[in-house]
């Protein structure tokens, strides 16, 4: 009962503030549910706190400079991948050019 009361209060506050879209609200609540799932004996305050944290995180947009370093692996893999694919295409074009070149070019000249 306490939990429902707090949660309704939070929802009403969010709706009234009108700075949150329905997607943001859904995302925040989903995140909170994910975080609290499997845990037991949570008080209404704890759930409210989790939801509030998630909402604040989303509202602030979240700035995570460490993600730049964490995702450098995609930069490396992406650039290696693209050079490899392009390398294969270049080789293929060169082979195609050789295979389809007119054989009597010299005699024509």
């Amino acid at each position, binding site marked *: 009962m306490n939990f429902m009361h707090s949660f309704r209060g939070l929802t009403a506050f969010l709706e009234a503030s009108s700075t949150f879209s329905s997607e943001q609200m859904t995302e925040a609540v989903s995140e909170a549910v994910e975080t609290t799932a499997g845990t037991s004996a949570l008080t209404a305050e704890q759930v409210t706190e989790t939801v509030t944290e998630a909402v604040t995180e989303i509202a602030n947009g979240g700035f995570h400079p460490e993600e*730049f370093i964490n995702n450098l692996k995609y930069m490396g893999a992406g650039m290696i991948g693209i050079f490899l694919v392009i390398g294969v295409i270049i080789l293929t074009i060169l082979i195609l050019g050789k295979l389809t070149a007119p054989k009597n070019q010299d005699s024509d000249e």
Partner: protein
Amino acid sequence: MSGLEFLNLLMGLIPTEFDPRQLAMWLIGGILIFLAIKKEMEPTLLLPIGFGAILVNLPVFGDLPALQELYEAGIATELFPLILFIGIGAMIDFGPLLSNPKLMIFGAAAQFGIFFTLCMASMFFDIKDAASIAIIGAADGPTAIVVADKLNSRYMSAIMVAAYSYMALVPLIQPPVIKLLTTKKERMIRMPYQQKDVTKTTRILFPIVITVIAGIAAPSSVELVGFLMFGNLIRECGVLDSLSETAQKVLANLITIFLGISIATTMRYDQFLKWETLLILGLGLVAFIVDTAGGVLFAKLLNVFLPKEKKINPMIGAAGISAFPMSGRIVHKMGLKEDPQNFLLMHSIGVNVSGQIASVIAGGLILNFFM
């Protein structure tokens, strides 16, 4: 009818739900239309997007289901961008690339901006949105739509506006970056062009082989590459001239009309007027700048190892972004400005065309990573 009833009737005509932010969106729509007409910046897309931005921010948007249907049918299913690729494929002559395939390496280097921006954007957005934003650097609208759509990005409209606006701004964005990274001496490097005949068989086999390679190496890109190459096969086969012409003109124009207005469906004030939109526009600019820098710096790196008579004009590296043919022409013009006898057009167009293929493959790689 009493005076009061008449007044009530009149009051009923006034929309009750009106947000001042809708006015701001009208202004944004107006600016896009102005840029399209007055500055001729990508008018085929910015004009419908601008008009659509006004249309979807009228108080009666709920009564315009046709537009929503168009979005669901063409953008959500990715049909419009893919069909547009048939037209683009039919427009592209891969001849300069086929006569000097080594130039393709610059197309690969100039995709660096995409992956750099991915890391940058991941500091602010979740990884799927970051990947969708990064693909603005592909400088290729249809690829950006397909990637953002497949990754379920929440920022489709901002990504589209950034992608198409920056493509139109390539003549303003690229020259300062190129100048900053090259010396006058480097910009004056001449690159003799040797005309090599490309056989019809090569031209016909090329789109088929590329589709197969892309399908194996980057499976997620096969739709994009496949449609692009199908269009090119229609062009090169020599027996479907009328279809080729239709794909290049009628089909491409028709899809472009629907594409622009459908994209605008996502430009509702409550979805578009966010600080994230400004951030996405900024990150898109970063992507274009780093793409350009990546191509130029890679050419400079190659020059370290090349003999003096085979040095590459590093400016052609900048043409590796997919904005075709603008980027190729810019490099050519810059070359002529430095030295009126320096004709870089065939090289730069070759690199530019390779950028088209490389950007699609980059899009496929991004999808491979995050789908």
